[in-house]
Every structure is written in structure tokens, then in C-alpha cells.
């Protein structure tokens, strides 16, 4: 197992390097960022002075190598917009995104499994039809539109949920304010509901369909028939024998799911005024704030890679056929 982990860590390093290179080249291709940091009345001399101050006058390879050198020391440089360490800005925004993504994922998986199981057990009935219709809808509706519709209906018309905003939970925990964190947990969850549905509805729908088809396949297997013939109660057959095997494909997806959900939060964070990393990156890209974009991408890549590694380890644990 350790060989596997070490091999994956080396692969991760290559992935991170690749990610930084692609981000760097993409940002450089989109124009000279200097113009965003000078007055529209700046003379050519002033523009050049700012270009030098920001380091954009150096050859691209030199800029990139300098960035890598600093990165090796954990230094992403100072944000061009916020004038403070880019990593600090990213790490400050990360907990809000983790809250949203985790909650969305818990919802997407936690609800998908029972829905998928029910749809499989009641195949061809109105229960199955309703769940699959919801699945189709979930995979067809864009998250930003769903978010806006929920704001209009549940936030504005019914006043059930807050329209926008965020109450932190993870950040006070990190800062050691455990009492504060837990005292505001109900409010934090309350603010999480609508954005999480908007982020996770697509995944919930896809996972429910996946569990359903997986369950249908498993329920027809010999060992399930054997279990039934032994007189084991139906709920035990479904949960202990069928579901245990049927949810393996879902576990495989969890790692990818997190990455997918992270991608989805950018738009949803804008809609719900959620102060997370998605919104930070969106603004940073608009501002050509290269250090913040780089720091965000690297941190997200690391989160994604780590999660996939954990999922692989869990997978090996729950499926004895898999050897690491």
C-alpha cells in the first residue's frame, strides 16, 4: 500500500506542475494584465513602470520559473488586487467552499442511494417513474438557473430560506472557536440548504440513476437469489447483500464527484453571494490576479488529488478484489 501511496504522490506532483503550467500559459495568453493595474490615463512610461513593478516585463519562462521557485517554498506571491499573500486569500475562502461542496456531496450521495434503491425495488411503478423523472430534470437544469428559481420561490415568496449569504462553521473551528462554531451550526446549515441543492442536484440525479441501474443488475445475481431462498428478510437482502455491491460504482465516483462539484460552485457561489474559492477565482480571473488564480488552482488540485487517493484506499478496503 505504501508503494502505491508514494507512487501516487509522485504522480500528484507531476499533475500539480502540469496544472500550474497550463494555468500560467492560459492567463498569459489572455493579454497583458498590466493594463488592469494602471489608470486609463497612464502614459506609456507609467504603464512600463507598473509592468516592471508587477514583474510582467520578464520573459515568460523566467516568470514561470520564478513562480515555481517560490512555490517550492510555499510562496505564491502577493495578490495583485488584495495586496496580501495570495495563499492567505485562498485559504480564507476555502472553508466556505469546502462546507458547500461537502454538504452538497453528502446530499448528493446520501439521498441518491435510497432513491436509487427505491427506484430499483419498485421498477416500472410510479415510484420508479417519479424518481427517474426527477433524475432527468436534475441532469437537465443548469445549477445557476435552479439557484435563481429557488431564491425566487423559497427565499422571496415563501421566505423559508435566506436568499443569500453565509454563516461560517469550519473557519471558527480552524481558529479554535469551537463554541462559536457549534453555536452557529444550525444557522450555518440553514444557509447551506439552497446553495447545496443548486450545486448537488445534478450529482444527486446522476447518482440515483447509477444506483438504480447498479441495484437492478445486482438484484438479479445468483447470490441475491440464494440469500432470499435462505429466508433472509428482504430488507437485509437489499441492504446487506445487494446494496453493498451496488454502491461500489458510486464510491468510485465520489472522488471525481468532489472535483465536479467544485467546478459547479463557481456559478452557485456568485448566485448565493457565497464567499468561497469559486467566487474568488472568478474575480481573480477577471482581474488577471495571477498569484490568486495559481494558488487557487494548486490548492484545489491538491484537494482533488488527496480525495481521490483516499477514495482509492477506501475502495481497496471495501472491495477485496482490488489490490493496491
Amino acid at each position: 500500500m505504501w508503494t502505491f501511496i508514494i507512487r501516487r504522490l509522485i504522480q500528484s506532483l507531476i499533475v500539480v506542475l502540469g496544472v500550474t503550467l497550463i494555468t500560467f500559459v492560459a492567463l498569459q495568453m489572455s493579454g497583458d494584465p498590466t493594463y488592469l493595474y494602471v489608470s486609463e490615463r497612464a502614459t506609456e512610461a507609467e504603464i512600463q513602470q507598473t509592468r516592471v513593478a508587477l514583474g510582467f516585463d520578464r520573459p515568460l519562462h523566467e516568470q514561470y520559473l520564478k513562480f515555481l521557485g517560490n512555490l517550492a517554498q510555499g510562496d505564491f506571491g502577493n495578490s495583485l488586487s488584495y495586496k496580501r499573500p495570495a495563499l492567505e486569500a485562498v485559504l480564507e475562502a476555502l472553508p466556505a467552499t469546502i462546507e458547500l461542496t461537502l454538504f452538497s456531496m453528502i446530499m448528493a450521495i446520501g439521498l441518491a442511494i435510497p432513491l436509487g434503491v427505491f427506484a430499483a425495488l419498485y421498477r416500472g411503478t410510479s415510484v420508479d417513474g417519479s424518481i427517474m423523472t426527477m433524475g432527468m430534470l436534475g441532469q437537465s437544469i443548469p445549477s445557476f438557473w435552479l439557484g435563481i428559481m429557488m431564491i425566487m420561490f423559497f427565499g422571496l415568496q415563501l421566505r423559508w430560506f435566506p436568499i443569500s449569504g453565509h454563516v461560517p462553521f469550519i473557519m471558527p473551528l480552524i481558529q479554535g472557536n469551537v463554541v462559536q462554531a457549534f453555536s452557529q451550526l444550525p444557522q450555518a446549515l440553514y444557509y447551506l440548504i439552497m446553495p447545496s441543492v443548486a450545486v448537488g442536484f445534478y450529482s444527486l440525479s446522476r447518482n440515483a440513476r447509477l444506483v438504480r441501474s447498479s441495484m437492478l443488475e445486482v438484484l438479479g445475481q445468483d447470490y441475491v437469489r440464494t440469500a432470499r431462498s435462505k429466508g433472509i428478510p428482504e430488507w437485509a437482502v437489499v441492504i446487506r447483500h445487494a446494496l453493498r455491491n451496488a454502491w461500489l460504482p458510486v464510491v468510485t465516483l465520489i472522488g471525481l464527484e468532489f472535483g465536479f462539484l467544485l467546478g459547479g460552485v463557481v456559478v452557485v457561489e456568485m448566485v448565493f453571494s457565497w464567499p468561497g474559492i469559486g467566487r474568488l477565482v472568478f474575480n481573480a480571473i477577471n482581474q488577471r490576479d495571477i498569484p490568486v488564480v495559481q494558488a487557487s488552482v494548486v490548492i484545489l488540485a491538491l484537494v482533488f488529488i488527496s480525495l481521490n487517493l483516499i477514495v482509492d484506499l477506501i475502495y481497496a478496503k471495501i472491495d477485496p478484489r482490488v489490490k493496491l
Partner: protein
Amino acid sequence: MKPLKSLLLAGAALLALPVLAQAAPPDNTVVVGLSAEPSTFDPAQISSRDNANIAKHIFATLFTVTYEGEVQPYLVDTTEVSDDGLAYTFGIKPDLTCDDGEPLTAEDVAYSFNRPADKSLAFTGNTPGFVYTTLGFKSAEVVDDLHVKINISARTTLALGMMSQVYIHCKDSYEKMTVEEAAANPIGSGSYKLASWDRGSQVVLEKVKDPGNFQTIIWRVIPEASTRTAELIAGNVDIITNVSPDQVGAIDSSGTATVSAVSGTRRIQIGFNMTDAMAGQPGAEEIKDPKVRFALQYAVDVPGICTQLLGMACDRATSLVNPPNGNPDLVPVPYDPDMAETLLDEAGYPRGEDGVRFKIKLQGPRGRYLNDANVIQAIGQYLTDVGVETEVELMEWASVYQPLLRTKEAGPLFFLGAGGVTWNPLYDMSLFATPEAATNYAGWTDERWFDDYKLALAAPTVEEARPVINRMLKLFYDEGPWLQLYFQPDFYGVSSRLDWTPRRDEEIELFNASLK
């Protein structure tokens, strides 16, 4: 029984949550929904309008511009100008204080002017950039405790207005802070001080002195327009910015808020790029002919665009100067496509067999100005209708269009909105300060304009420069480098509980806001 009791308690708590989450602001608090979040509170770094709107309440300024567009003293008691107009000596009001408790003296004022100009700190905000470039700032020096001298490089009637943009901050505190610390810890001299900054979510200001009718101002960051509208209608926010025309009806019919529209100072225009960068492009030579430029003015139905696409009636602009500072003798060019065709014929560009006089490209941004993409496409069609076959190209602002503009490579026709003011026509005209000016995106080189601009700028007062200004504006009207459009309307959503009047210059000033 115990679990049931817990469940009931939990249910009651959940029911109470909506009340907690959606409580309307208390009477001593006003909440503003902003579209963009502030990035810094360092007075030398602030550059965006949203950021400046908050800063304006934290930092006082030597002068202030009123709703009516007059520059009036604020911290200043007396003003003396040297004979050559290159030195301004201000006496500041006695007994002023900083937020750190120290007295506010001439030393603080001089420091506030000199710090942004410190090249070693490489500030990139509005003050060291746009303000100091326009002002021609050289240095500030202390005369005595209550007198400070500001030196500039050339006489200009823009001086006091530009100085009104410089935030006065407190030397002792700033000297102890790093640039990074200064970004998050503003120590000013204004009516409010920063109470908390929850990055990405909100900024809370608390009142420390008059003027100001609210004890607390909360600036909430709500990037999405429809979310801002929902928060306003729900009564959670008192003022929102950048209401799009399609949401006006929803707000006005909500019963909890109304839309306040104002004709802004941003000048929307189509520029004619006459620089060498356009050489060889279709239409580039044709637009160098002033007769063609004037003929095209008749081709576009500007009032129609305002009514149909911007949701507000407007008068067509007659020049680049904001009303009421324009030339009163100029009448907006009417929409008259027949006249456009006649003038184009007379200019020597008749329709060809295919009905086309000449072809040209119109470039513009998407999502930068109010309904810009639709406006640009409409203009493209108007021009095509009179035989100038126009290819419209819409671009992303920050990475594509802005660099093109800055290098004067946008065009041959380019769509642009330029910020303006109401306090001095020469500010609006300074886009064309010299043929080489960075903001002369059109590459206009008419010597008559630039000679007159020097004359106007050197005049001791705007009134004395008025005949020259009017002559220049007539030239701009007849042969200028713009296809004149409109002053962009600004729409604000305002809660029904609030008495507040929006300004024309996009500044949000809450000192006079009050509950009805």
C-alpha cells in the same frame, strides 16, 4: 418523552431560524447591496467604484463635490492659489481628529498626498494613477500645523476637483503599518470607521462623527443582479446598484422598494479610430472624412435605443461634456436616415450595385455597460440600413477588449463608455488633452481642438474659458471623433423605508440618507 421534547425544541428552533436569517435591518442601520467586493482599504490602492463608495465614508477629503456638481470645501477652511496657479495653500479646519484619536493636522494632509506618490511603494490605485496624472501632482509640504501647500506642474481649473478625490488619512498610524496591514486597517478622518470586514461577505461601518443619519452602514457583497433584487424586495437590503432594466418592473410593483433612475455622467459613444493601426481595414479611410462622421450621426436613433433597450428616455448627447456644462447652442442630431444617406452621397460614398457604400467593423464589449451588446448590435443595424455594411464584433472586456483599446487597436468603430463629471467641462474634455493622450483612443489630431484645449486649461476660471470651450464643443459636434450616443442611465433599487437620492456620478453617498 425526552426524545420527543428534544425533537419539538429542535423544530421550534428551526422555525425561528427564518426570523433570525431574514430580519429587516434595524432603524439605525442602512444596508447597501454592492455588485463587487472591496479589495483593499488602503487609500492609495483603491480603484474600483464600489470600493471607493465605502472609502468615501471612512476617509474625509479636502473638498467634496455636491449633488449639483459644485466643488465645496470639506476639511478646508481657507484656500490660497499662487499667481502662477502652481501652488495651492490650504488652511484646514482646527480641532479635526483622526480615528486613532490623534489630532488631524497639516502633517497628515501632506502625508496623505505624498504617500500615494511614493514610487517605492508601487501603488496602483486611483489616486496615484488617474488623479495625480490629471492633477499634475508634484508634492505636498507642511507650512505649519494647520496649513499645507500642494504643488502641481501646470495651472488647471481641475485642481480642486481632483484634490477632492484624495483620501486624507492619518500619518502616525500609517507609518507604523506595512502596506499589507494598511489594506485592512483604514485609519481615516471621516464620519464612519471600519467596524468589521468579513471578506467576500460584508463590510460594516460605525458612525464616529457627523454627518450621517445612520449609526451603522452595512455594505453587503451580492454579485448576482437577480439576487440583489430579491434581497431588496425581501426588505433585507435598502439600496442596490446596477439594477438591470428588465428588473425595474418587479421592483416597482413589489410595494417594498422602487427604482430610482438617474441620467449618469458616463458618456457612451462610438469612437472612430483614425490611427495608423487601422490602416488597410475596411472603412478606416472613409471615417477619416469629417463629412462621413457627421453623416453617420443621423443614421442612429439614439432616443429609440434609450427607450427600447435601456428602459429610460434620454436626450442624445451633443458633445463629450456632461450637461449642464455643454455648449447650449448645440442641438442633438436627430434620427434622420434619409439625411444620413444624402450626406454620405455628398461626401462621395454612394451606394454600390449591391446597396453597400462601404464596409466597416464595429467592436465592443459584452457585459461592461448597461445592455451594451444589444445596443451595439442595434447600432450595427442602423449603420447597415444607410448602406454602411457593419460587422459587429463583441468581446470580453478585461482580457480582450480593454488591451485593444489601450493600444488603440480597437475599431475602426469602437463602442465605449467614458466616466465623466458634473463639476468641470474640462475634465470631460481632458480625454483629448493631447493627440498622444492615452485616452485619445480615436487618435484624433485636429490641431484646432488641441490648441484651444491649452488655452482653456490655462484660463483662471471655467467661466473665463467658456467661449473657447463652446468653440471646441462646436468643432467636436461637427467633426469630432465620436458618434454621439447618450449619458448612461443608472438604476438604483431603493427600499420604501428610505429617503435617499442617487447621484449622477455613480457615487453612493449616505450622509444625507434617512428613514422616511
